[in-house]
């Protein structure tokens, strides 16, 4: 080492023993980094937003029975009048799969997903996961519009699988691509309303009477938007008949 | 990454992003071919130290060749020329 090593600071060489001053400094630095990693891990984790309450029981496979309909959204009407949406594995709907059972009483195997007043059954992939059985046929629910009053809502179009608990959170910017794929794949579009004052909760979306979104609306899935729509019901399910021309990106504060 | 070209089925909209992804997949595919030739044969003629390294060690240079193969090709040629002229 240096001749005047007493006056000059110690010099580090990677393949030589660590000088004492560096050893002290590094011990302190590593301690600081450990504390930094622990605190940043905890603080950032705590700063995440709440993904919302869902009743996800997806680990329990179960069997349901009821009458199956394909339109406007694939669904099963149980004997007590309650409705489960029917959804598929991955980012796919099940309209084609259940088409042979339209209007028939069936049993379905799968996993339930639910959020607020909306619930769905994710059909198992096995071929006989949906099968015709004997039982009372419930009539197809009719869409009834109470008034033609236009409501203005702020929120985000989400897909009827992830937002019900398949992914948590199943909304927001990071999920935008996924929600778009899900809706393209035939999963029912929903509107996650963020107006605090609104009584509407998680209605399903129809544009021009169809659950298939036109590209102009698909582009805005997963983003904060403002829209006007007329409200109707399909049995216990709320439906928004959205006027596509009314949709615009929303960057303001939620009312 | 290199499989993006193959995986890229079901194009329904031809946007700049999709064109970029296809080009990227092709870039990595070409890089893989050039990289294999480079680490197995090419490297021996231009780097005496690397020439002494066993093949399994030289394979660690493969990802680098895949990522910057145009630069590798250029320097490879330059070094070969310099080697033959000296």
């Amino acid at each position, binding site marked *: 080492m240096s001749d005047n090593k007493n006056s000059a600071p110690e*010099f580090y060489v990677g393949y030589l023993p660590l000088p004492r001053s560096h050893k002290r400094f590094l011990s302190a630095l590593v301690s600081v980094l450990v504390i930094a990693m622990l605190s940043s891990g905890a603080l950032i984790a705590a700063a*995440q*937003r709440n993904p919302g309450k869902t009743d996800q029981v997806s680990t329990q496979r179960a069997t349901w029975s009821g009458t199956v309909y394909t339109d406007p959204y694939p669904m099963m009407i149980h004997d007590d009048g309650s409705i489960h949406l029917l959804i598929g594995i991955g980012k796919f709907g099940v309209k084609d799969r259940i088409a042979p059972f339209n209007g028939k009483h069936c049993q379905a195997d799968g996993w339930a997903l639910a959020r607020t007043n909306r619930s769905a059954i994710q059909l198992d992939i096995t071929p006989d996961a949906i099968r015709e059985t004997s039982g009372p046929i419930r009539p197809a629910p009719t869409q009834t519009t109470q008034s033609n009053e236009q409501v203005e809502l702020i929120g985000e179009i989400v897909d009827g699988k992830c937002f019900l608990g398949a992914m948590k959170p199943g909304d927001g910017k990071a999920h935008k691509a996924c929600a778009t794929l899900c809706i393209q794949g035939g999963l029912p579009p929903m509107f996650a309303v963020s107006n605090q004052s609104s009584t509407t909760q998680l209605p399903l979306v129809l544009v021009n009477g169809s659950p298939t979104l036109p590209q102009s609306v698909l*582009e805005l899935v997963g983003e904060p938007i403002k829209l006007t729509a007329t409200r109707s019901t399909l049995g216990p399910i709320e439906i928004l008949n959205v006027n596509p021309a009314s949709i615009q990106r929303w960057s303001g504060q939620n009312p | 990454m290199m499989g993006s070209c193959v995986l890229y089925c079901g194009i329904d*909209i031809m946007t700049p992003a999709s064109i970029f992804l296809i080009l990227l997949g092709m870039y990595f595919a070409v890089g893989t071919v050039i990289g294999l030739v480079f680490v197995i044969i090419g490297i021996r003629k231009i780097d005496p130290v690397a020439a002494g390294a066993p093949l399994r060690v030289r394979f660690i240079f493969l990802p680098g060749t895949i*990522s910057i193969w145009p630069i590798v090709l250029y320097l490879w040629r330059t070094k070969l020329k310099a080697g033959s002229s000296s």
Partner: protein
Amino acid sequence: MTVSYTWVQWNKHKKIYDLIMLALSLIFVATFILTSTLVYKDDEAISAMILAIRAFGILAIILLHIILCIGPLTRITPLMSPILYNRRHLGVMMFFAALIHAGLALLFYGAFGVRSPFAGLFDGYHAYTSISGFPFEIMGLFALLILFVMASTSHDFWLAFLTPCLWKSLHMLVYLAYAFVLLHVVFGALQSERHPALATALIAGAVTVFALHIVSGLKEFKPSLQAQEADAPWIDIGLVNDFPMDQGRVVCIANQERVAIFRHNDGISALSNVCAHQAGPLGEGRIVNGCVTCPWHGYQYHADNGQSPPPYTERIPTYELRIEGERVLLNPQPNPPGTPVTPAVRSSEPSSDEVGET
């Protein structure tokens, strides 16, 4: 340049370094996931896969900030040199954290749909002109591609093959990657994660990186020396006693590469300040075991010929020096790399014509 290549050029320090960094990374990931599951549990639990995507993404950003701060911090205090020593391994680790983040996001958000995962994730219906619709995923892909170029060319072979100058330029792309990462986060996660602590942390990180670069730049700044007409081309670089024994001094010459001056035994020698390995600042080094030693990775050169001791083969340019009286004069014209130059020594009796009083 090196004697032989191995997969990873580990030594004892590098192994300890890597183990500590790996442990720090695991501490972060574990703390993040554990806290998340404690804060949001049962019917409010965040999906495990999303926690993993977030944990590795944030880890990569934290490591990137550490990497960007190491350089300027080492310029501010040499005590940081051991952290600089193995920065490349940290870079590769950061790339893998980012790759895991990207891979999981591609799988979870992009796969199992009507389109390929790449198409689904990068080619959705985006709007480049809007903040909420801006395709943040493609920004992340750009950053990842740059990090891939850097991680894949981090082996010493690439330094030798590309030459240190080109290698260094390539690795300066890390700043571009950092810019893409910032865009990726600002137009992505921060659009829906609105807790002020998150945006504050990102801004604080960027400000720290920027400030450290400014401070270290100011610290490193030295006025350039120029030849006085009477002495041209020789430049007065100071008194003999300005140069401490066995320590380097950096001299800045107008419009030229910096020169490292070393006083060893009775003589003074001048070498290029640029290490042939990774362009480290030789003038901030020392004489160790009789050789000029680079402060970055310990590459060594003989002071009197700019050649690495055998079996190493690195060579750097040398410069002519002469001593007149107590003044040291430098010829700023570099010799070809490895040219032997006799160290300048004080003449037995000080010369009468003192030069270059400035």
